[in-house]
């Protein structure tokens, strides 16, 4: 698993869930499961608009629908790598951003999910960015390291 350790300068989000790894992997690759959680809070991901072709070169498409206003947000990515049940990688052809999901069996039916986003432009990869601190210009400017004391 050494290849999925976070390198300095990339966005990484992790979560431990109480479920066996194989089941977590299925949740991430089967529309019947994805529809239950792929949309964030207040957003649905209708089952009939999820396409999963989980193999290198295959597509992963979803439409996320805002429950409040019906607004739709379509995602379209291409799988680079599919290793059951431990690793998924896909690239967004529009942005070039790569997302690598790794699933680590922690034993006792616990699984760590690690979302590793690579090719995020360098100014946005700081630990501060990961912690969500980059919400104002002043903080951003501080990160640039050019404006100390402001």
């Amino acid at each position: 698993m050494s290849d999925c350790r976070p390198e300095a300068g990339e966005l990484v989000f992790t979560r431990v869930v109480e479920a066996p790894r194989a089941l977590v992997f299925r949740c991430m690759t089967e529309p019947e499961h994805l529809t239950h959680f792929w949309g964030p809070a207040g957003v649905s991901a209708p089952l009939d608009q999820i396409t999963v072709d989980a193999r290198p070169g295959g597509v992963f498409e979803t439409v996320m629908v805002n429950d409040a206003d019906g607004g739709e947000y379509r995602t379209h990515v291409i799988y680079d790598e599919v290793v059951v049940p431990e690793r998924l990688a896909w690239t967004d052809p529009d942005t070039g951003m790569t997302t690598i999901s790794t699933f680590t069996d922690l034993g006792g039916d616990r699984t760590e999910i690690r979302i590793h986003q690579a090719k995020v432009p360098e100014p946005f990869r700081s630990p501060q960015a990961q912690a969500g601190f980059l919400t104002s210009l002043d903080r951003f400017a501080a990160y640039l390291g050019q404006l100390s004391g402001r």
Partner: protein
Amino acid sequence: MGVSELDATFTALADPTRRAIVARLAEGDATVNELAAPFDMSLPAISRHLKVLERSGLISRSRHAQFRPCHLEREALDAAAGWIEDNRRTWAERFDKLDEHLREIQRGPVGDQERKAR
């Protein structure tokens, strides 16, 4: 802000010279000559960087003033920084729902089937 605008912003900020220019403009408007001063770079080279920044929407340049000072468009910079936070929140909320979903399917007969299936 759409994906293409964000992409342009990210691309513009991927270069250290352009980041330094953005940092300088955060202190106030500046002309091309003023922006070029700290760099060992020709004016045309600086101008090319400014064009990339301008196309990305991160800076604007006055059409009227004699030296066409450059101005930082803070909203564009904030939007790009906000994207990071939105992205983090999306995954956090997704994980919350996944956690709930996993609890649901591991409970009762459906859960038994899922366990047998692995």
